[in-house]
């Protein structure tokens, strides 16, 4: 008989994305075999994340400051507040930040429009983006949603809302990735790359 405590841990771990029953068991036994301090530190980190990490009330990125305050991106005076990059989720924000090329601010939608999943504008942080336009002198919005059907639908919808209020809306360029292989590129990617070709 496996102790109930282990069964409970396995059941909780198996709820994590990409973790099946077997992986959950392996992780549980790893925790059990590790020094007790490791398990306590892991538990404390999990509790801390739940208790302290919140959404920024302006850009809806993550931050661990007091409730109602802004995140590091929104508080950083070196960042250009006239330029806002709209991303689908936190992982995309981190990916853009890793480039060290973008010096503006962010707005996290927490999803994309998805007709087949029934996700409409109401379920995303779109209304908050429009309200943000009234408080800050935003001149350009870069829509950095994925170049798939849902991402394009979201970009087109945002364009429809933002263009009439005089904001420049741009979209991340699409085409062949660095180190990519033309032979394996699909026709849509190649067509976009041709359409967005640039002078040398």
């Amino acid at each position, binding site marked *: 008989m496996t102790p109930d405590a282990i069964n409970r841990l396995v059941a909780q771990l198996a709820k994590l*994305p*990409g973790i099946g029953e077997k992986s959950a068991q392996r992780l549980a036994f790893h925790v059990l075999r590790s020094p007790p301090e490791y398990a306590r530190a892991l538990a404390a980190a999990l509790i801390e994340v739940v208790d302290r990490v919140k959404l920024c009330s302006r850009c809806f990125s993550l931050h661990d400051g007091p409730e109602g305050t802004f995140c590091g991106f929104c508080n950083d005076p070196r960042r250009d507040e006239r330029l806002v990059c709209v991303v689908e989720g936190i992982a995309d924000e981190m990916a853009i930040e890793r480039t060290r090329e973008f010096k503006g601010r962010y707005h996290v939608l927490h999803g994309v*429009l*998805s*007709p*087949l*999943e*029934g*996700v*409409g*504008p*109401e379920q995303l942080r779109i209304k908050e983006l429009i309200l943000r336009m009234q408080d800050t002198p935003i001149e350009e919005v870069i829509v950095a949603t994925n170049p*798939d*059907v849902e991402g*394009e*639908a979201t970009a*087109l*919808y945002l364009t*429809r809302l933002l263009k009439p209020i005089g904001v420049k809306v741009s979209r991340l360029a699409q085409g062949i*990735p660095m180190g*990519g*292989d033309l032979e*394996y*590129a*699909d*026709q*849509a*990617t190649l*067509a*976009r790359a041709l359409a967005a070709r640039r002078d040398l």
Partner: protein
Amino acid sequence: MERFADEALVLGTVDFGDADRIVTLFTRGHGRLSAFAAGARKSKKRFAGALEAGTHLTARLVTTHGDTCRLDGVDVIRSFHHVRDDLAHIARALYCLELCRELSRDNQPNDALFDALVHYLGLLDDKKAGPTSLIKFELDALQYTGFMPHFSPCALCGQPTGDRPRFDPEHGGVVCAACAPRVPRGVAARPEVVDALARLQAGERKPLPPELRARSRELLNLFIAHHLGRKLKSVEFMEQVGTD
């Protein structure tokens, strides 16, 4: 384990695990089927953007012990990527895919529905499909799957539907005022809407004015929701973003 290739349209995908996808395909030879695409979210070469909803392709499949096939590879026939240039076109394309996903059946080929969907996506891609053509597609799709609504004459008595018709999905369409008491759940329909739908069903290609179009789609949404047992998600999306 049998290997086969079939012409298919991607109806939708669901992410599975860290790198895989379950793809719902509408195939010409095998009807609707689900296929497991291993590594589809990571591989840049094997599926390279081909598993987007609406892509027309040749799928290389392998049957497995369960209901889900294994997708070994694809060759894109047409990606309809110009559909993505317009929000209304995206909404219409995804609505048609969802409608076909719900109307088609596993392992039951439907050539007429397949051809109609390929044709309509082609019209959207070529920017030749106006809003009325969506209603025509809905009527065709319902006809090809055995759900054809009846607009003229009265579905119960066979007499002309008159100037106070009622629409009742349960009885298959429009009934006349004299038969109205027999369809307590029927809704009032404007005669010009009923007439427009009957003409579209008969093959007329004249675009409908926006008001007539909106009322026609209301009746069709009611009919489709009744027969599928739920309102399609993409219908709500179209309402929210204001496209028809």
